[in-house]
């Protein structure tokens, strides 16, 4: 039996519908703006002294277990973020490693934890809404009672933040939730309250952004007042301003993050990815929403398919 011209055209029309459905339309999704009540913190690498007090503060605040590794035979020495460590200080070192916040022959610290994106990939990815963005504070939280453990959030996070309990028969995803339980009590996150130098300052992201911009204008080597613990704590330390690189990490990366970073060496050296301004979540969602808006397209296609299958059956009968 040969393909009849009429049938071929019918089929081709069907394919056209399918192709139209399959064709991603790159209609610009509405850019998600930073919430007015967005909470986060500003991490200033030049003020960080690598004391790791924030790591201890974090473990204490979140009741996390210790983690030892082969890095050094000591009680607590995580190698990287893991299901037991959701906040870590890492060091960048180059050449002689003698000068702080200098790219060549220098060293610098970087604090890694959840960035609390404005448009988080993990929230977009999670099929069961276990990852949620608080509508007021924008803090990205995790609900283990919803989670099915599919780990798509790990794939979707540009910063590799969500961690999985691989060695557990009943695992969970573990990530920084900006000490939401402390925020509810009016306290500030453990890493911010324990930071001795004010390298990690808690506050409203919009205020923190203004503070980061202020620091960028500072004259290197001069003494300035830097807030400690939280931006509105009223407590300040007078410290020497360092030479900042102009970029404020998190200002626009993947649509902006609620945690902001300042540093003296390029962020790519500190292990932070170079990211576009448009979030991957919005790219994926715009494709998805174009295809499945109100399930109209799939229903139309289904109706068409029903017609084709039905008529083909009549032909054979």
């Amino acid at each position, binding site marked *: 039996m040969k393909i009849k011209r009429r049938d071929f055209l019918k089929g081709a029309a069907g394919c056209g519908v399918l192709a139209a459905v399959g064709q991603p339309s790159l209609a610009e999704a509405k850019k998600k703006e930073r919430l007015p009540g967005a909470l986060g913190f500003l991490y200033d690498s030049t003020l960080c002294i*690598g*004391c790791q007090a924030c790591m201890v503060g974090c473990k204490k605040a979140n009741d996390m277990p210790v983690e030892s590794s082969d890095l050094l035979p000591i009680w607590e020495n995580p*190698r990287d973020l893991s299901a037991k460590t959701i906040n870590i200080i*890492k060091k960048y070192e180059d050449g002689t490693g003698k000068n702080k916040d200098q790219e060549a022959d220098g*060293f610098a610290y970087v604090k890694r934890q959840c960035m609390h994106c404005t448009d988080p990939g993990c929230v977009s990815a999670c099929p069961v809404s276990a990852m949620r963005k608080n509508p007021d504070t924008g803090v990205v939280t995790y609900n283990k009672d919803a989670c099915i453990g599919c780990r798509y959030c790990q794939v979707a996070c540009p910063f590799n933040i969500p961690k999985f309990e691989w060695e557990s028969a009943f695992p969970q995803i573990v990530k920084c939730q900006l000490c939401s339980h402390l925020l509810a009590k009016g306290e500030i996150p453990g890493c911010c309250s324990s930071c*001795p130098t004010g390298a990690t300052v808690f506050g409203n992201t919009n205020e923190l952004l203004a503070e980061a911009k202020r620091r960028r204008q500072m004259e290197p080597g001069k003494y300035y007042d830097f807030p400690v613990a939280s931006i509105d704590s009223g407590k300040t330390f007078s410290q020497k301003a360092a030479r900042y690189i102009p970029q404020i990490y998190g200002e626009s990366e993947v649509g902006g993050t609620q945690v902001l970073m300042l540093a003296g060496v390029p962020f790519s050296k500190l292990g932070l990815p170079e990211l576009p301004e448009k979030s991957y979540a919005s790219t994926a969602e715009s494709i998805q929403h174009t295809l499945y808006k109100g399930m109209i397209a799939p229903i139309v296609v289904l109706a068409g398919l029903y017609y084709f299958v039905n008529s083909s059956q009549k032909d054979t009968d």
Partner: protein
Amino acid sequence: MKCRESDFEKIPSGVSRRDFLKVCTATAVYMGLPASFGPKIAEAATAAKKRPPVIWLSGQECTGCTEALLRTSHPTLEHLILDLIALDYAETLNTGAGHQAEEYRAKSIEENKGKFILVCEGSIPVKDGGIYCKIAGKPVLEILKETAPKAAAVIAIGSCATWGGVPSAEPNPTGATPVYKILEGTGIPVINIPGCPPNGYNFLSTVLYYVTFKKLPALDDKLRPKFAYGRLIHENCERRPHFDAGRFAEQFGDEGHLNGYCLYKLGCKGPETYNNCSTLRFNDMGTWPVNTGHPCFGCSEEGVGFNIPLHTPAEVKNVTPGAVQTPINVDHGGGISPGAAALAGVVAGGILGAGAVAMKKIDQEEKKQD
């Protein structure tokens, strides 16, 4: 409480041989030398016909450095100046005075030309020809310039002599200048023993090292002996574990302060001050500022003590970042293992083999079907 007789017996007027060796061995240990160097030091200090002569000059100072030295007990000061060195001139300790003392100084310098050790305590004013500090009518600047070329080595003791100290604080009205700057370019070896005051043993060890080996101990780029100033106070501080755990005293007298937490937030300069206070301590009784509850104020560090406000947090220095921090890129393993690779290889090979067999079979089948 009544003091027992025996308590006083321990202070010897003449030192027994055993005690003396103990002192020399202890000195060797301070300098990081093997204990076996103790007898060698003892030999050097006593065998020489003449004890090494020392001339002690005073500039703009408070005698604090001398006072601190007086409180050393092993050896005691009298043992030091009577048995180990010949302290030929020192304004604070001279028995003679006036012309008598000045003459004896001149005589000693001439006799021991090229052999004596010159110790300078206090900064040297240079403004207006150095008129702000005169001894016997002569600016100390000139005395230093005359004496130093004849000395075997110059030891600048105390922060004033090493980098200006209190007299050099803003606006520095006398033009107080450290000794090494005045002697810059003359080729005269200078050793800096900073501190306000420096630990007496740092000074003593340096002198005995020189006497024993006839050379200067290893110095850092700021001319400080490495055995004493090689590490930050912070590195060996007894409160360091609190720092690492993020436990800080926020205010004097608060809960953290009472619990002996880290004093960093109160402005402790330990993290930027190179000295051995946290291990050697003072006054032979294990005391030093930090264990009394006061932050280190960086007296021995140039540009820190008397320069940065007392309660401004320190700029934490590390020669290299600590080994505790994990690097940016960590190898997490999870790579290919021989067993897993072999298994995958066998399966891939099996599939390809099966494919080849299938191809052959198709040939046979086709022939049969034809």
